[in-house]
């Protein structure tokens, strides 16, 4: 039962750092196999800086959670990843964000096709006021992904199946999407995102309006989708981040404080701000 603890073993570990926001992100911002990579990203809303020099890789076929207090910049950063911030006039983004080594802020990039590659699911389910079928078929139609009606039918069916919704809606595809329950609507929105064969799916608090059962279904779906897609999820539920993500990134006052393996972040966070936030020590 003799235990030998060398000083190096103990000293090599990361002591939790102080409460000031660190200049440099703690943890591993780089991954071996990035789908997207952001470098030195700054975002300004007019005079106000919302994102301060964030660099982060999003790994291929991985789920990464963005967590942090309200107003920390996690949603703003998420929305940079498919240029959703372009729609806000006073918003200015600088730095570099690449998807498969291509800069998404390159003027030559077609934003509409970018958003097909990097799909988005919002906090509140937002089905189009159209039939279930048309909700899914909309994207493939405008992107010309189906050559025939048969092919379009196939895309609709396979998207609904992958979203775990097919069995529940196959007999009422012509009925309005808005007639589904909240959880079904959210899965419809995920199916709609999948229908255009994206590489990345961004989710902004996708379960915050759902009950635990609907949440579990969406989480199960995320688990299945991670094989094929890269998923970035903003969540206010620490348990959800711990359950579903491979990596977790903690944002604070527009900075990325730390990012790392989810298990490490939730058992032994490197920074005291992360620790305080995830354990409920400040608001």
């Amino acid at each position, binding site marked *: 039962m003799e235990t030998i*603890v060398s000083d190096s*073993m*103990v000293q090599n*570990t990361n002591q939790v750092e102080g409460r000031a926001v660190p200049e440099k992100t703690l943890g591993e911002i780089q991954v071996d196999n990035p789908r997207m990579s952001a470098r030195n990203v700054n975002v300004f809303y007019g005079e106000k800086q919302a994102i301060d020099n964030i660099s982060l890789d999003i790994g291929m076929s991985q789920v990464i959670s963005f967590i942090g207090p309200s107003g920390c910049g996690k949603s703003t950063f998420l929305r940079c990843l498919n240029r959703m911030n372009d729609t806000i006039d006073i918003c200015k983004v600088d730095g570099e964000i690449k998807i498969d080594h291509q800069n998404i802020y390159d003027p030559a990039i077609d934003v509409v096709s970018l958003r097909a590659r990097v799909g988005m699911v919002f906090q509140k389910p937002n089905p189009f006021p159209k039939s279930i079928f048309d909700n899914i078929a909309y994207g493939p139609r405008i992107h010309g992904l189906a050559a025939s009606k048969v092919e379009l039918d196939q895309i609709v069916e396979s998207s609904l199946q992958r979203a775990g919704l097919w069995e529940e809606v196959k007999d009422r595809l012509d009925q309005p999407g808005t007639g589904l329950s909240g959880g079904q609507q959210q899965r419809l929105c995920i199916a709609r995102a999948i229908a255009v064969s994206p590489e990345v799916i961004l989710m902004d608090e996708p379960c915050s309006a759902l009950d635990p059962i609907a949440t579990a279904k969406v989480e199960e779906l995320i688990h299945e989708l991670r094989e094929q897609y890269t998923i970035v999820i903003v969540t206010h539920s620490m348990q959800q981040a711990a359950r579903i993500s491979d990596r977790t990134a903690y944002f604070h006052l527009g900075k990325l404080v730390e990012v790392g393996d989810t298990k490490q972040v939730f058992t*032994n*966070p490197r920074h005291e701000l992360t620790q305080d936030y995830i354990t409920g020590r400040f608001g």
Partner: protein
Amino acid sequence: MNDLNDDFFRHISSEFNEELEALRRSILEMGGLVEEQLRAALQFYSTQDSSLLSKTDEIEKKINAAEIDLDEQVETLIVRRQPIASDLRLVLAVSKIVRDLERMGDELEKVGSLSLECFMSGSDVGVTEIQQIAEQVAKMLSESLNAFARLDLDLAREIFQREREVDKVYQSALRALATFMIEDPRNIGRILNIVWIARSLERVGDHATNIAEYVIYLVQGVDVRHPAVNQNSFD
């Protein structure tokens, strides 16, 4: 490092703070019971007052009750608070320390009843050896509990050193006891029981070392048990 100690009680939820504080207090109280048990045995060796040994038996029952109470506190904290990060490490560490303290209680109960058998017969052969081990182990135990209470890494590491010293005292006690057996084979039965006492005390020291390991885990999030199989704490 003491920052972490204050940190446990800075949650927004004051109820959560109180629950963690109660958990820490309870485990230290349980540790105090084990210390009391060991002290009773030590006093017996110098006073030969047999009433001290019946105390080790009574205390053992209190220790068992404390184990049940602490397990319940741990369960409630997990269900109600889903602790993470340092909170999780505190709850896990306490849950393991409970187990070690309970085992120590069992060992010391054995020490009590065997001591009564061996040392009330008028002979003091072996008492010095047992006393030496018990004193060393008592220091280890109180240091391990202090290391936990103060989250003191240096103290926790000193305990590993102390364990090696206890091992030496234990080995030399075994040699001395073997000599007594060789000198007079009529002593063998009695001396074997003294060997069991030494063995139990040495085990108590091992459990104290475990506590020191949990303190390091609690403070630093690294598992220092079995270094050979545990190169990377997150694999």
